[in-house]
């Protein structure tokens, strides 16, 4: 009897692990139908997001706009390089994270801003979640508001895509959950008082009610990790940038909503 039970358990376990290793190589990348996080909010929160005055995220967008046109002591203003016609901001956020051929690395918006600061402005890098980096990221992303995400995998970014996807599909933490379990398989269902979203990053940096502040996508990712009782990665780390890349590919076609409101 005991032996039979053990065999059954072993068979079950092997089935589980077998379906596990092959499950996501050919899995569809996008949930269908594709739904932005906004669709899972209450009407009141949606109204706040679309209110271009009362949406508190605009406090950061305003600040970002000021910084964008401000000339630093030794370098030039962002607006010197980015005009309406030359390297315009419009639509640029829809392409991030983006491969930078000079550094041969994958940049998210924050990394691009910091690269510009060091290279063209002779200014020090801004740390993650500082008011100024949030403000500049929110302002630049908001210039692409309403435009669809167009990030695609190329030869150069294939390894980033795979690394990000691995993170998305790997169980972690004391709760032993992977991102895909909630955001691919159970979106639309209830988790306590929340409706589980599809886990897209198209509204970030976003004003989260829970934070009472604007925050980056990486801060949200680290909150997810902490939520499943896993060790969060440092904000701006390569794996989070790769995960951001996977999420952007997964959300292709969704419009940029920055600055969005999230729960």
């Amino acid at each position, binding site marked *: 009897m005991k032996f039979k039970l053990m065999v059954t358990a072993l068979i079950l376990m092997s089935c589980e692990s077998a379906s596990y290793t092959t499950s996501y190589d050919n899995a569809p990348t996008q949930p269908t139908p594709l739904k932005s996080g906004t669709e899972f*909010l*209450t*009407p*009141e*929160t949606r109204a*706040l997001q679309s209110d271009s005055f009362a949406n508190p995220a605009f406090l950061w967008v305003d600040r970002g706009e000021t910084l964008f046109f401000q000339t630093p002591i030794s370098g030039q203003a962002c607006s010197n390089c980015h005009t309406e016609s030359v390297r315009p901001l419009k639509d640029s956020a829809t392409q991030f994270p983006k491969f930078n051929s000079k550094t041969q690395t994958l940049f998210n918006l924050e990394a691009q801003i910091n690269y510009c600061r060091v290279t063209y402005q002779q200014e020090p890098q801004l740390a993650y979640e500082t008011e100024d980096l949030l403000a500049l990221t929110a302002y630049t992303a908001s210039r692409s508001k309403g435009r669809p995400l167009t990030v695609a995998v190329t030869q150069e970014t294939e390894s980033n895509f795979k690394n990000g996807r691995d993170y998305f599909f790997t169980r972690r933490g004391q709760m032993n959950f992977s991102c895909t379990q909630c955001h691919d398989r159970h979106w639309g269902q209830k*988790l*306590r*008082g*929340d409706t*589980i979203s599809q886990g897209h990053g198209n509204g970030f940096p976003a004003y989260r*009610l*829970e934070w*009472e502040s604007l925050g980056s996508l990486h801060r949200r990712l680290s*909150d*997810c990790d*902490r*939520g499943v009782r896993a060790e969060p990665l440092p904000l701006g780390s390569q794996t989070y940038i790769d995960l951001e890349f996977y999420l952007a590919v997964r959300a292709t076609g969704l419009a940029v909503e920055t600055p969005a409101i999230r*729960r």
Partner: protein
Amino acid sequence: MKHLVKRRDILKSSLAVSFSLTTPALALAKTDDMTAAILDTFGRLPKESDAILLKIPPISENGYSVPVEIEVESPMTNKHFVKKIALFSDRNPLPLLAVYKLTPRSGLAKISTRVRLGGTQSVHAIAEMRNGDLISAKAKTLVTVAACVIL
């Protein structure tokens, strides 16, 4: 045993009746803290009135930022105007949320804001009129708990 229960019920109902006859509706609010805060702000208790319209969403998905709208019927002239409006929570650790002081120059006694609410509860709006009338309205909201609260 049966007799006891019965007697208790009778006692309760008679108490309730005597309360409702002698004190304004708000004195029966669950939180004594809120009643104390109202007395502290206005020195007396208000009467419920239809002249205040208090709007709050029936479900708030996060208690950190709940939209509230208050409108008090008043011509807002030098003779008749709303002097003061205060917002109270019957569940927060501090019941008094905010106080607004208006003048005839306000033109319209209407305010919108966003408040923090520590759980499902009723929010009370109290308005003090130029003629001394003190009126109130309340509205309930269900504050849901987020799934992945990181503390």
